[in-house]
């Protein structure tokens, strides 16, 4: 039987190579700022941040699986818990909680109290429509898609917009089984 997934990522976070969070925070900020300059449309910036996150999620999933020793992600509920409790801790050093499950267990919220992406950030009036942390929703979407779960991730609360926490709603659209990729007449 596969080893049970760890309940928290503290041990893993303690064991991985870590770097000064300011460098990470300011680099992300500088990217957002550059995108705002290059793309002008705030909506387009949100889109690009999400796309970047998606590509990152696709890369990061294997490190997450390897280090957390998770050997199966079949149950959405289980998977969401592990991503929040282990994934966020292991990479960002913060813990997220999972709440607001709907009746059929296909939709929940991931809530962040503490978020290293936004240290020092103050949104000027010029970018009100901006979802500054939109890269996070992309990462979650990309990572889940690699474990066969097509999801839709949307922001519910955002401290930079005056809310009391960061809340992402994750909705499971469908689970995609593995197809046999070759046609037999090939």
């Amino acid at each position: 039987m596969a080893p049970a997934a760890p309940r928290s990522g503290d041990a893993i976070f303690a064991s991985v190579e870590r770097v000064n969070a300011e460098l990470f925070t300011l680099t992300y900020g500088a990217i957002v700022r550059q995108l705002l300059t290059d793309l002008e449309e705030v909506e387009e910036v949100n889109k690009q941040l999400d796309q970047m996150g998606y590509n990152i999620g696709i890369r990061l999933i294997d490190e997450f699986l390897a280090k957390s020793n998770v050997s199966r992600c079949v149950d959405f509920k289980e998977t969401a818990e592990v991503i929040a409790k282990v994934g966020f801790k292991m990479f960002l050093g913060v813990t997220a909680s999972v709440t607001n499950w709907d009746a059929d267990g296909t939709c929940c919220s991931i809530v962040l109290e503490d978020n290293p992406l936004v240290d020092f950030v103050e949104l000027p009036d010029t970018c009100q429509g901006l979802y500054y942390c939109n890269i996070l929703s992309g990462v979650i979407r990309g990572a889940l898609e690699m474990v066969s779960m097509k999801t839709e991730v949307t922001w519910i609360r955002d401290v930079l917009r005056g809310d009391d926490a960061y809340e992402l709603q994750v909705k499971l659209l469908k689970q995609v089984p593995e197809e046999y990729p070759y046609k037999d007449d090939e």
Partner: protein
Amino acid sequence: MGREVSESCIDSLLTEMVSTYCNRFYANKPELAARRIEAIGYQVGHQLSERYTMDRPRFSDHLEAIKFICKDFWSELFKKQIDNLKTNHRGTFVLQDNRFRWLTRMSIDQSPENGASEDTSIMADNKAVQSMHLYFPCGIIRGALSNLGIPCAVSADISNLPACSFVVRIKA
């Protein structure tokens, strides 16, 4: 020690940032992509140099500032100092990091078993992408120094990986 995040956060962010600008925004305009990536590094260096000089006296000459970059500044970013500093005493400084963190995982297959012609083209691409990854640290150094009142041009040499030499040319 302040707040930390996993090294993979910054690594994957940089990888994606470079590929976004090189492959999606400016697929066939590398020089434009390079300028954007350098600008992103410039802002970070500019901010961090002000941050890390808060509790120290101001620099009275260029060498002092460069030494600060090699020691305190580099340590904050990479938990190690620049390994070797050379200068021609005419405004050019060479900062060598014998094992530059952001290059340690970069590798391409140079074994001949892949079709030679294809290989050379891939090698060329890889060299190009590799150099794209250097505009960010170059930007950081240029940003940090210009914030300290030292306008300069910064380039990087990776002829012997994973060592990396940053060449700083101060504008008279």
